């Protein structure tokens, strides 16, 4: 656990309610997709709508981060931060496309796998913002 400086705790745009929401949403969706996969069900409407909602939340997170950047704030590790940010907003579309291509239980498994990776990337995104002076 990196030491939390007061600046990071107060100022991180990617570690608040919105980030928590994306993590919870993603995990719930992963759980739903896992149940579907175990029941031999292809990706259903709930999964596709869930992916869309998740994408909107992630885009909102990206906008919040960009607004903070334009306001003069800087992430601790800019390179890694932008890498994670770009990857993050690409994940739900990737799950969507692959799930569309695979209308079997394995499509649900793909949605589950990608929705398990997404929270990890959100957490890493927060960490790369907060490393202020190492």
């Amino acid at each position, binding site marked *: 656990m990196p030491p939390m400086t007061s600046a990071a705790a107060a100022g991180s745009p990617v570690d608040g309610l919105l980030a928590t929401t994306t993590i919870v949403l993603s995990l719930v969706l992963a759980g739903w997709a896992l149940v579907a996969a175990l029941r*031999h069900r*292809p990706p259903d409407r709930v999964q596709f709508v869930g992916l869309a909602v998740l994408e909107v939340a992630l885009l909102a997170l990206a906008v919040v981060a960009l607004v903070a950047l334009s306001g003069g704030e800087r992430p601790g590790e800019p*390179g*890694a931060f932008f*890498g994670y940010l770009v*990857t993050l907003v*690409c994940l739900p579309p*990737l*799950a969507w496309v*692959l799930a569309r*291509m*695979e*209308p*079997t*239980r*394995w*499509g649900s*498994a*793909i949605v589950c*796998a*990608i929705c398990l*990776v997404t929270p990890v990337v959100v957490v890493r995104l927060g960490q790369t913002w907060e490393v202020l002076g190492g």
Partner: protein
Amino acid sequence: MAEPVGVRPDEAGGPAPAPRRATNKGPGRLLIAVYILFAIAATSRAGLQIATKFDEAPVAYLLSAVAALIYIVAAVGLGRAGHAGRRVALACCSVELVGVVAVGILSLADKELFPDETVWSGFGSGYGYIPLVLPVLGLLWLWRTRHATA
């Protein structure tokens, strides 16, 4: 294992039944998805490390780049599903398995060699040991699909 009911025509438009079972359907597609994720992870990591601090640990960073390349080629090989695709995927999964085991042992034995983490350090412990499991699953999948399903 029961095959899914709604089998649809091959969207790639390739010649109808291949002599071997396609590697890019069903579980194979999940495997490809995970390979794509690791291709993205390893590529970004290697790109960033080489661009910003190559001199700190050249061996580790070049290895990250090689790992990234292997993940990309493996994903393409599994996705192409033809005879050539199978051979490419087989080669990649084999190299990957040897690589992750070798680097895992080396990173424990000689910390000087890998002062910074790579995807394969400590048998992929930084990535939930998935780098170790992935090539095994890939090889198993290639083995399982070696015959056409009648």
